[in-house]
């Protein structure tokens, strides 16, 4: 019988303690981020999908088609092609296509780290939901051209 009454006593004590804590919290401001009314603040290191960096003067990608990013990628999601540069005094290669298969990408950053020519960076895109798989097979060369058009 002793245990019975002490159980009721301790039980009601924990109940009141718990209710007091939650009741006090009830009147505090909400801590949840109110997306989409509030936009999240991005850290400088935020990893969106990768994008090519355009040259500041010409707007052409800095990429020299060395293929290091392709080899560094653990998920084989980068495919790029280039051709020999044309015109007088031109040397090296020019990028003709750079396709990222974002469905396979795990955002590990190996490609960006492996790049020695300042040609790749992470974008700040995060609104990426889609019903179509093809939306995630991204033509990054077209993306850099679009960015150039927006600039001018």
């Amino acid at each position, binding site marked *: 019988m002793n245990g019975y009454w002490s159980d009721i006593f301790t039980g009601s004590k*924990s109940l009141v*303690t718990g209710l007091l804590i*939650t009741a006090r919290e009830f009147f505090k401001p909400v801590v949840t981020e109110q997306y989409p009314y509030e936009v999240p603040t991005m850290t400088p*290191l935020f990893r969106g999908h990768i994008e090519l960096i355009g040259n500041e003067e010409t707007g052409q990608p800095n990429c020299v088609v060395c293929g290091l990013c392709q080899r*560094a990628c653990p998920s084989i999601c980068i495919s790029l092609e280039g051709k020999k540069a044309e015109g007088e005094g031109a040397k090296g290669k020019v990028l003709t296509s750079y396709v990222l298969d974002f469905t396979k990408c795990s955002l590990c*950053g*190996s490609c960006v780290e492996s790049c020695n020519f300042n040609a790749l960076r992470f974008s700040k895109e995060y609104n990426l939901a889609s019903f179509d798989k093809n939306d995630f097979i991204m033509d990054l060369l077209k993306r850099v051209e679009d960015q150039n058009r927006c600039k001018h």
Partner: protein
Amino acid sequence: MTVPISLRHDETFVLNLGPQHPATHGVLRVILTLDGEYVVKAEPVLGYVHRMHEKLAEGGTFAQFMPNTARMDYLHALAFNHGWALVVEKAAGIEVPERAEYIRVITVELNRIASHLLWWAAFLLDLGGFTPLLYAFDDREKIIDLLERVTGSRLTYCYMRFGGVYNDIDDEFIAGTRDFIKRLRSRMPRFYHDLVTHNIILIKRIKDIGIITPEQCRRYGATGPVARGSGISYDIRKNEPYSVYPEFDFDIPVFDECDSMARYMVRMHEMEQSLRIIEQALDKLPDGPVMGKAPKVLKPEAGYYYSAVETARGSLGHRLVCDGGKNPYKVKLRSPTFSNLSLYGEVAEGMMLADALAFMGSLDLVIPEIDR
């Protein structure tokens, strides 16, 4: 004449718990043979999220396996990063700068607290309490924001590199971490202990439930809070120190009760010990580079290598076989939760169904790490 129901003691039925069940935290299937409410036999079935990570390691270079490590134990991903970095550094003989070691310890311990907070939240959710989850996630969110600042990701980190870390920590991270230590310490007594630990419902649900004897722990190779809740003082950070752990003053919480409550208390105390480690590491943080000298293409000498780290769930061993090439010849992981789950069948025998689920929660299972 029919036998009255009360006399039919030999009749059992089979209940399929999972593979999709909120209490199994992932795709674990448990075939339960029940006699009324009592468990006669419990048989865990694995393999639903097997992705052959160990085999995948053989197909790529050493660095290419780093993102995979985080996808095994997604709750304590940095410890898996750390384990892989350690074994490869051992194989290739790479030196790590001291600052990088300190940063590794700080981030791994922050991640350990986040893992314990999530366990705490999910465990209480299993027991039917929803409110604690919101308080724990509030605190966990602070850690994730801090780690996102330095690692670039929120959950599946790829932060460690052979010979250092990916990115240096800045003053804002250090200030934020100090704030977080203060915040968690001030919230711990009220939101964690007053609200939950001393709550009579929790005590009645988990005290003296799920007794794992030290002998069982040894037989199944259980480690981490499961072993420490059974009175076995074993923690890789103390017993086989790695990185800069010997330089810090911290305790290994051990409880002798062997029940679910003991495992609960071990994890609650471990959070405080992790905070102590982080505090000391921030005070002692040396200057210098965060990346040592490491060759671009790693070709460790042929041989067998092993190293172990302590994750939030127990000891994690990496065994690496090299043949002198630039890919690992073979990788084998000794993951803690596999051993911890193995004893489930034996211990759950004779329990009531609701207790068996509470006991399963107290083991802190992460299924992708078991299946890999």
